[in-house]
C-alpha cells in the first residue's frame, strides 16, 4: 500500500523564540535546566563556575553563553571575561555552552541570543566571574608559592612574581580546594588591556580555512538524511500522499508522515532531495489559501481606515498640538513580509541511543531545544545534550525550532541517527517572516521645527503571540498540550484585542522628544507564521519615522539635521550622534549627480545616524557610500562594532532595494536567490564608520545599523528625483 490517509491528530507545534526584540522579560518557572553543568572535565581540572574550565596544562576554556551567528559574540564575551581573568581572548578556547540555567540571558531569564543584548547583559556578570576566578587563582598561587597574594600579579593567563611566570594551570588543584571569592573589585576602564583594542576575531582562522563546524557539517556513523515535503501554504496538514515512486528511488530508506509534512529518509541528502520530487501529497484547506499580497495590503488599509486601533502610547493633546503647528504632514508607509535567508539553511542532527539523546544544530535558543527534546522523547532532561554549532547566519531565523521537531520525530520513528536539512526553497517558502506593516503618520511642527503633535498608527501581525505559541512547548516541557493551547489562546486574544505587542510598534516615536504623541495599533493576522527579523519593529518603524522627519523638513524648508537636533534637546547621546553626522555630511564632497539622504534612529539602547550617497540612473537606485555614526557605549571590540554596522547596512540595503515576500493563494511566491535577491559585491556601497564612545556601559550593535538605512536612501532618492518613495522595497515610478 502506498497511499496513506492521515488522520487529523494533534501534532506539536514547532518551537520558536526570540530573534530580535525584547520579548519575554519574565522568568518562566521550570523552563531552564538546573541539573549538572553540561561540561566535560577531567578530575584534575578546575571548573570554578559554568563559564570557565582551567586545566593543569593551562588550557583556559570559556563556555560562551551566547550563540555565535556572525555577530562576533564569542570574541566579545571572551574579551569581557578575559579582561578580568587577565587572559588574552585569543589564548582562550571558546566553546558554545550547553543548556543550563546558569547560561540564561539575565534579562530574559531564558537561554537565548537575541535583541542585540548579549554584550549589554553579560558585561557586568562576566567581568565579575572573571575577576572572582582570577582572585581564586591568586589565592591558590599564594598558598602554593608561599608568597602573599598582594605581592603577586598576573599577565595573560600567568601568575607573576618577580621575573617568574607561572601558568594559571599550575594552581588549579589547590584552587579547587578553596572557597570561590565573591564581589572581587573589577577594573577601572582606564586599566583595560583587551576591551577597546583590536585583534583578530577568535573564529576568523577557522572560518577562513573551512574548518569551522556548522550544524550542516555534523557527520555521524550510520547517519541517514531526511528532507521534508511541506505544504505550500503554511499550517496545512497532509490529507493523503502517494510514495510508491519515491520508495523505488535509489538510497531511499523510508517515507513517513511527520507533524510538518512528509519526510523522505535516504542514505544521502542528495538522494533524499531527488526522491522527494516524486512524492505527491494532498494538503488540507486552510484559511490562508484565500490570501494573496494585494489582499494583505487591502486588509491593512481597511484596518487603519476603521480607526479603532488599541492605544500603545499617548501623551498630550494631539489635536491641540496639530492646531499649534506651523506645518503639518500626513503620509502612509508600507513594508512587506520578509524572509531572513541565512546562508546556512536550517538543519539538525539527532542521535538517540538508549536513554540518551544528543542534538547537533545551530540555534539561538539552546535551552528551548533541550526542552523540546525532553517533551518529544520523554527522556530525562539531564540525558539530553544540545551541542550548538556555529550558526551560518541567524538574524532571528534560528530562534524557531521546526527543524528540531522534525529531526526528533524522524529519529524516533527510524531509530537511526538522522540529519534534517532544509533546501533554500524550503527556507524561503516554509519559514517564519517579518510581518508586513502599514503605518499612517500625521505630524505637526512649529516654525523652529519642534514637533508639536505626532500620531502613528500601525496595522499588521504580531510576533510575540506566534513566538510564544511555538516556544511554550519547549519552555514548559511537562505542561500538557491542552493547557498550553489555552495559555496560547489567551495570549493571542490579549494581543489581538486589548494590549499592544511592543515589537509591533517599537520605534514609532521614541528616538525623539515628542511630548505630544499618540501611537495606536490594529492587529491584522492572515496566518502566515511571523517572527523576529533583524531589528524587528524598528525595521519598518525607522523607515516611516525617518521618512516623515524628512518630509516635515522639506515642507517647512528646514535643514533635516537641524530639525532632528531640535527634537533631541533632552536626548544628549543621540543629539551628539546626529550633530557629528551632520558635520560629516556638510563636509562631504558629493560628485555630480549624487545626492545625500540622512536618517537617525535609536534601537536596542544604541544611537545611530546614517548618510546615504545615492544616484539614480534610468530608474535604478545605486547607493555609492554610507557613512555611519554610532554611540553604543563602551565598544568592547571596536572592529566588531564596525563589522556589525557594515553588515547591518548591507542587510538593510538588500531589504530596501529588493526585499519582498509575496503570497499567491496563501503560498510564498519566492523560492531562491533569483527571485529573492541578496545584495552582491558589485552593488555594495563603501562604508565609513565613526564610533563615539560615550564611556557608558555597552549597548546593542547587531541590529541598530539596520533601521536608518532605508529612510536614508529614500530621502536621498527624493533629492535625486523629487519622488517620495513610501513603500519598501524602494521602486521608482
Amino acid at each position: 500500500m502506498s497511499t496513506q490517509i492521515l488522520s487529523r491528530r494533534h501534532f506539536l507545534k514547532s518551537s520558536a523564540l526570540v530573534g530580535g526584540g525584547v520579548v519575554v522579560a519574565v522568568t518562566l518557572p521550570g523552563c531552564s535546566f538546573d541539573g549538572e553543568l553540561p561540561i566535560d572535565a577531567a578530575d584534575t581540572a578546575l571548573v570554578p563556575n559554568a563559564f570557565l574550565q582551567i586545566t593543569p596544562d593551562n588550557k583556559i576554556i570559556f563556555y560562551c553563553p551566547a550563540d555565535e551567528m556572525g555577530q562576533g559574540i564569542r570574541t566579545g564575551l571572551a574579551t569581557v571575561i578575559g579582561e578580568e581573568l587577565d587572559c588574552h581572548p585569543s589564548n582562550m578556547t571558546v566553546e558554545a555552552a550547553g543548556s543550563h540555567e546558569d547560561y540564561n540571558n539575565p534579562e530574559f531569564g531564558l537561554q537565548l541570543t537575541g535583541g542585540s543584548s548579549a554584550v549589554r547583559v553579560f558585561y557586568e556578570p562576566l567581568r565579575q566571574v572573571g575577576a572572582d576566578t582570577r582572585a581564586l587563582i591568586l589565592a591558590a598561587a599564594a598558598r602554593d608559592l608561599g608568597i602573599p597574594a598582594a605581592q603577586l600579579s598576573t599577565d595573560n593567563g600567568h601568575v607573576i612574581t618577580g621575573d617568574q611566570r607561572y601558568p594559571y594551570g599550575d594552581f588549579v588543584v589547590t584552587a579547587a580546594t578553596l572557597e570561590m571569592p565573591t564581589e572581587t573589585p573589577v577594573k577601572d576602564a582606564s586599566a583595560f588591556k583587551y576591551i577597546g583594542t583590536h585583534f583578530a576575531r577568535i573564529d576568523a582562522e577557522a572560518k577562513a580555512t573551512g574548518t569551522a563546524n556548522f550544524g550542516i557539517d555534523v557527520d555521524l556513523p550510520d547517519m541517514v538524511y531526511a528532507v521534508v515535503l511541506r505544504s505550500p501554504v503554511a499550517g496545512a496538514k497532509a490529507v493523503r500522499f502517494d510514495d510508491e515512486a519515491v520508495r523505488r528511488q535509489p538510497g531511499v530508506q523510508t517515507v513517513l508522515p511527520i507533524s510538518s509534512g512528509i519526510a523522505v529518509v535516504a542514505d544521502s541528502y542528495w538522494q533524499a532531495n531527488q526522491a522527494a520530487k516524486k512524492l505527491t501529497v494532498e494538503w488540507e484547506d486552510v484559511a490562508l489559501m484565500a490570501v494573496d499580497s494585494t489582499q494583505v495590503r487591502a486588509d491593512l488599509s481597511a484596518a487603519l481606515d476603521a480607526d479603532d486601533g488599541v492605544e500603545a502610547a499617548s501623551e498630550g493633546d494631539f489635536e491641540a498640538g496639530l492646531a499649534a503647528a506651523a506645518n503639518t504632514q500626513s503620509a502612509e508607509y508600507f513594508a512587506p513580509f520578509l524572509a531572513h535567508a541565512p546562508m546556512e539553511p536550517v538543519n539538525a542532527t539527532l542521535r538517540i541511543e538508549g536513554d540518551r539523546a544528543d542534538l547537533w544544530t545551530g540555534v539561538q535558543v539552546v535551552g528551548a531545544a533541550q526542552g523540546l527534546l525532553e517533551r518529544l522523547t520523554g527522556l530525562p532532561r539531564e540525558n539530553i545534550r544540545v551541542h550548538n554549532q556555529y550558526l551560518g547566519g541567524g538574524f532571528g531565523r534560528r530562534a524557531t525550532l521546526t527543524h528540531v521537531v522534525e529531526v526528533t520525530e524522524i529519529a524516533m520513528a527510524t531509530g537511526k541517527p538522522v540529519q534534517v536539512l532544509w533546501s533554500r526553497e524550503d527556507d524561503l517558502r516554509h519559514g517564519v517572516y517579518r510581518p508586513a506593516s502599514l503605518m499612517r503618520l500625521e505630524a505637526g511642527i512649529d516654525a523652529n521645527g519642534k514637533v508639536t503633535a505626532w500620531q502613528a498608527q500601525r496595522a499588521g501581525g504580531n510576533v510575540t503571540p506566534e513566538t510564544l505559541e511555538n516556544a511554550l512547548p519547549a519552555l514548559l516541557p511537562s505542561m500538557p498540550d491542552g493547557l498550553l493551547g489555552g495559555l496560547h489562546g489567551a495570549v493571542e486574544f490579549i494581543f489581538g484585542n486589548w494590549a499592544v505587542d511592543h515589537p509591533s510598534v517599537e520605534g514609532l516615536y521614541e528616538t525623539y522628544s515628542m511630548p505630544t504623541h499618540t501611537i495606536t495599533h490594529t492587529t491584522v493576522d492572515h496566518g502566515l507564521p511571523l517572527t523576529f527579523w533583524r531589528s524587528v519593529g524598528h525595521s519598518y518603524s525607522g523607515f516611516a519615522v525617518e521618512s516623515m522627519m524628512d518630509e516635515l523638513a522639506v515642507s517647512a524648508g528646514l535643514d533635516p539635521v537641524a530639525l532632528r537636533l531640535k527634537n533631541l534637546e533632552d536626548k544628549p547621546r543621540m543629539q551628539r550622534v546626529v550633530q557629528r553626522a551632520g558635520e560629516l555630511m556638510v563636509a562631504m564632497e558629493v560628485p555630480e549627480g549624487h545626492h545625500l539622504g540622512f536618517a537617525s534612529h535609536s534601537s536596542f539602547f544604541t544611537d545611530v545616524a546614517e548618510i546615504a550617497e545615492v544616484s539614480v540612473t534610468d530608474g535604478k537606485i545605486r547607493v555609492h557610500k554610507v557613512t555611519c555614526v554610532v554611540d553604543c557605549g563602551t565598544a568592547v571590540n571596536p572592529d566588531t562594532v564596525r563589522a556589525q554596522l557594515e553588515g547591518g547596512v548591507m542587510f538593510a540595503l538588500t531589504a530596501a532595494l529588493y526585499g519582498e515576500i509575496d503570497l499567491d493563494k496563501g503560498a510564498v511566491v519566492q523560492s531562491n536567490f533569483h527571485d529573492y535577491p541578496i545584495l552582491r559585491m558589485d552593488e555594495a556601497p563603501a562604508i565609513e564608520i565613526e564610533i563615539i564612545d560615550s564611556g557608558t556601559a555597552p549597548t546593542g550593535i547587531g541590529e541598530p545599523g539596520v533601521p536608518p538605512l532605508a529612510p536614508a536612501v529614500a530621502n536621498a532618492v527624493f533629492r535625486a528625483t523629487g519622488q517620495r518613495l513610501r513603500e519598501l522595497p524602494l521602486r521608482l515610478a
Partner: protein
Amino acid sequence: MITFMLNGHQVVFNGDPQTPLLWAIRDEFKLKGSKFGCGAGLCGACTMHLDGTAMKTCVLPIAAVAGKTVTTIEGLGTPDSMHPLQQAWVEHNVPQCGYCQSGQIMAAAALLAANPDASEADIDTAMAGNICRCGCYPRIKGAIQSVAINTLGYDAMAEEAAS
C-alpha cells in the same frame, strides 16, 4: 566509476554520476569546508576549483570532473599553512557567520591566479556570483586587494599543482 584528482590525490567515486560534485565531496569524501547555500548555482557557497577555474559545484554533476583536478578550500590552505588570501581574511577580520567564506576565498583565489593585478572592477565582476548575507563585502574586497597589490611572488596555480 569516476576518477579525478582531489586536493592532490587521485580519488574514485562509485556513486550516481549525476550526483553534484558538492555532495560527493561533502558526504562521500567528508570534506565539509565547501557549503550548500542554494542548490541552484546562485550563491557561490559551494565554489571549488576545477582545473584552476572557480566553479559552482552544487549543480555540477560529478561525471563532469572525470580526469580533472578539483581543489577545495581544504586543498587551498590549512590553519597551519594558510594561503595568502586566507591570511588576509584573518588580518582583515573578514568573516562574520563565515558560512560563505570558503566559496568567497575559492572565487578570489581563482581570480588572482588568473589576474594577480586584479582591479576593483575585476574583483567586483569575479566576486558577483558569491553572496554574503552578513554583508562582509567591503572586507572581502579589501582582503583581496591586499593580496593583489602585494603579490609577493604568490602563484595560486603553482600552489595548487604542488598540493
